């Protein structure tokens, strides 16, 4: 089990550990746990050791080292890597290796991080349990009968299992925060545009955002610093400087900070008692640090999930059009040359039929329907209007408070197979998380307690656009007076 990134950096500086030793520990941990957990789709053992060797050589030569020097980082298999396959856990992209690195991957290499491998996920990031992966389910290290959440299930599970201190996930409707909550780790969805999406295989472009997962807020801040920033190749990237997030975390004094608690979530009958208790407890912790608690409401919160489940499939249906077997990826071997639509359309249909799993097909169908002539106004355009109202709710709420506190999920980690045949139940996992994506806000999931089964519970803080510092500041204070984030499975 590996230490935190901060500790690993310190030990390399003091000469107690080399980067190669750390990498070998990480690889050994993966070898030990992954047969049970299945958090990885690809482990790049040789490349990782090579990268670590280069870090050690640089250190020995007295050269300047990046902020993540020698730290093993696992990357969700939705980010393009020029030296490892990028599959999105889909049969469609099995073995596909992009000719280029995603910007965040490039930044990790620049920071001298050691890329250890690619992590399992729901196919094309569609799911809340990592059960839709074409490469098998990932299991929750706290209880291997349960899911790690999703879609960044592998990214959260490998951190929870102590394989790596840091991982990158992506969050379209809660895909970092929900698995972080289920796995008892800390996960941040940054402001939309704070981290470049260049090289992030798109699920729903207007909602997707890459973000860090780690044991603690300290490490999350460290990783965010390395991946955030303006990117000219991404038009939606925000042209704003990156604060020194790590420096913000030096206090437990939250006096002057107003934290809003959502009335809707605290009254929601669908939420487990233990989750609500953890949120109230977190409120008490913040109050004890000097923060003021106020009750706020977001009037359109009941429309978050329906709005999300129109917009996300619409964009996904379009983004996934490129997978048709003609240019790369899975191509059917049984083209019907005598098909009524001709061999070309037959090749498209069969390649997509064979390449995509059920959940992806379901969302493509929903999206195409909601964008089609005669229905676009009823669904897609209506959803865009509601999305503006939802943003307006957040704007109004943030005039009354600095941060919003609430649950991440309605329950703790559920059993594998429990919801996989019931899409609506699965979609409701995103009940509390999709609001931040629809409004483009930063939000963090923190370990906030355990339920009666000993499973971790997450609490969520949300902040106005680009206020990651405020989120990390409050989250850091919480972790400095609680120890939930230090517990291991």
């Amino acid at each position, binding site marked *: 089990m590996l230490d935190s990134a901060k500790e690993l950096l310190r030990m390399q500086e003091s000469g107690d550990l080399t980067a190669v030793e750390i990498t070998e520990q990480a690889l050994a941990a993966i070898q030990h746990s992954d047969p049970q957990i299945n958090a990885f789709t690809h482990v790049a053992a040789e490349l990782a050791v090579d990268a670590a060797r280069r870090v050690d050589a640089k250190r020995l030569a007295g050269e300047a080292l990046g902020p993540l020097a020698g730290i093993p980082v696992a990357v969700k298999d939705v980010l*393009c890597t020029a030296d490892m396959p990028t599959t999105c856990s889909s049969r469609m992209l099995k073995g596909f290796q992009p000719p280029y690195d995603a910007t965040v991957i490039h930044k990790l290499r620049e920071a001298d991080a050691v890329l250890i491998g690619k992590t399992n996920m729901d196919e094309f990031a569609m799911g809340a349990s990592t059960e839709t992966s074409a490469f098998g389910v990932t299991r929750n290290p706290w209880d291997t009968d349960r899911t790690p959440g999703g879609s960044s299930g592998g990214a959260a599970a490998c951190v929870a299992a102590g394989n790596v201190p840091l991982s990158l996930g992506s969050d379209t409707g809660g895909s970092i925060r929900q698995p972080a909550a289920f796995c008892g780790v800390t996960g941040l969805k940054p402001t939309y545009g704070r981290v470049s999406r*260049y090289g*992030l295989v*798109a699920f*729903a472009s207007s909602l997707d955002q890459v973000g860090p997962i780690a044991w603690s807020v300290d490490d999350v801040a460290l990783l965010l610093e390395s991946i955030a920033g303006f990117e000219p190749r991404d038009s939606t990237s925000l042209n704003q400087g990156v604060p020194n997030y790590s420096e913000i975390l030096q206090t437990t004094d939250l006096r002057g900070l107003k934290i809003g608690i959502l009335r809707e979530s605290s009254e929601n009958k669908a939420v487990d008692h233990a989750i609500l208790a953890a949120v109230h407890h977190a409120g008490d912790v913040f109050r004890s640090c000097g923060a003021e608690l106020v009750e706020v409401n977001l009037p359109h919160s009941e429309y978050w999930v329906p709005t999300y489940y129109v917009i996300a499939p619409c964009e996904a249906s379009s983004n996934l*059009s490129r997978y048709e077997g003609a240019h790369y990826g899975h191509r059917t071997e049984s083209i019907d040359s005598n098909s009524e639509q001709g061999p070309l359309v037959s090749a498209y249909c069969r390649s997509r039929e064979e390449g995509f799993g059920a959940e992806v097909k379901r969302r493509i169908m929903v999206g195409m329907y909601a964008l089609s002539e005669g229905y676009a106004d009823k669904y897609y355009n209506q959803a865009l209007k509601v999305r503006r109202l939802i943003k307006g709710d957040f704007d109004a709420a943030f005039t009354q408070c600095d941060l919003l506190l609430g649950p991440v999920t309605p329950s703790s980690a559920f059993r594998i197979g429990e919801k996989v045949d019931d899409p609506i139940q699965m979609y409701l996992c995103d009940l509390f998380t999709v609001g931040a994506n629809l409004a483009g806000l930063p939000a963090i999931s923190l370990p906030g307690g355990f339920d009666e089964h000993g499973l971790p519970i997450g609490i969520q803080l949300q902040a106005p656009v680009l206020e990651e510092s405020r989120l990390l500041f409050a989250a850091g204070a919480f972790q400095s007076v609680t120890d939930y984030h230090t517990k291991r499975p």
Partner: protein
Amino acid sequence: MTAHEVTTIIGLEVHVQLKTQTKLFCGCSAAFGAPPNTQVCPVCLGLPGALPVMNEHAIELAIRAGLAIHCSIPPMTKWDRKQYFYPDLPKGYQISQFDLPICADGYLEITDPADPDGTRHIGIIRAHLEEDAGKSMHDEVAGKSDTRIDLNRCGTPLLEIVSQPDLRSAAEVKEYLTQLKLILTHLDVSDCEMQEGSLRVDANVNLHIDVDGKKVATPIVEVKNMNSFRAVERALEYEVERQYADWENDGLTIEDNPKTTRGWDDVNQRTFVQREKEESADYRYFPDPDLLPVRIPSERVEALRQSLGELPRATYLRLQSQHDLKPYDADVIVNQGPAMIAYFERVAEVSGDAKRSSSWIQQDVMRTLKDRELSIDAFPVTSVGLGELLKLVVKGQLDNTRARDVFNYLLDHESTVDQAIQSLGIEQVDNSEIDALCQELLDANPAVVADVRSGKVQAVGSLIGQAKKKNPNANPQQVRETLLKLIG
């Protein structure tokens, strides 16, 4: 051809490739003619994870083109995805513009082919930006047909200019395309090379037939694959005949069959039915979430409007009114582009004789340009040089033959007009010298004097030739006048 009165209704969709260095959403070169798939990157290939970034220069060119055809430029425009599956379209959608095009509601002024003094305004519905798709190349080798895909063209910027169905004949279409091409090349917005595909025309055509005072419309046909102005003209002429003949045969109207697509077969000079790529396509347009809406401040539009300068049509009219050129001559000069217009105007200004300048440019200058394969920018005789030369002709100090000698000398030597005259030994002959020369010739040719006196004035011609031999610098016009004066 017809027993009924027939009105031809034509609307055009013209795709113009904009003259940008790089593609619409990535840094790849947009140049024509590179080996297949060598000008591609993750963005234009639509690889997973790649994101488009808008080319500002394309926006600027589109606005300039739009302003030149009297379009309004909205303060905000946006990008939309147009979704369909096609092997040339690697993303499965084309980034285009749907409900907020960058240019809307303009017109193009053309000369009425039926009346050279008349003008027609052809309405422009919209002009929008979009990325081009790739090209499929069908190899028919050894009985099996392979299709190879070249994605170099993917992402090159196109401006699609959609006209109202205001055009009434193939001749008007030709005039519309000529004017449009003139404007776009004048503004350096596009090369408009039909052979290279940088200007592509689709025409929608049908007939309104008057039957006992009631209008009957034939089905609309969209004609594609025309790759020269000549082909467009021929295809439309053919289509008008065909639609009328079909209607006489089967009586089918637009109610029976709203729209079909036909290709143009240049070899057999006929249109033929094309299989529809998409039947009643639903493109499921929606705003591209990867690209932010484009804000276009009115100051930017105004600055671009100021930068347009005089447009070809206005120059054409002005050359006629200001310089008294004939429409044909004005047209020839304007068609040569901005550099030639500037050249002409300077020559006319310096020489003080626009008509003479125009005729010299159309004959001597343009012939030399053609022979030597030069552009006017590289022409050895400067506009001021030619203007000064022609000024001497106007003042009667040089005749046309001597002027042409000077012109030819200037073509091959770096020299001023004065130096050229000196080098060629051309001297100004004073009046007394001419008088003496003429008297000498008259004395030696009494027969000519007698002929002239008896009314055969053209007899002096032989003496002019002799005068020229004795003194090459003698101005023939002056010699002629002097001879006649002396004969009395």
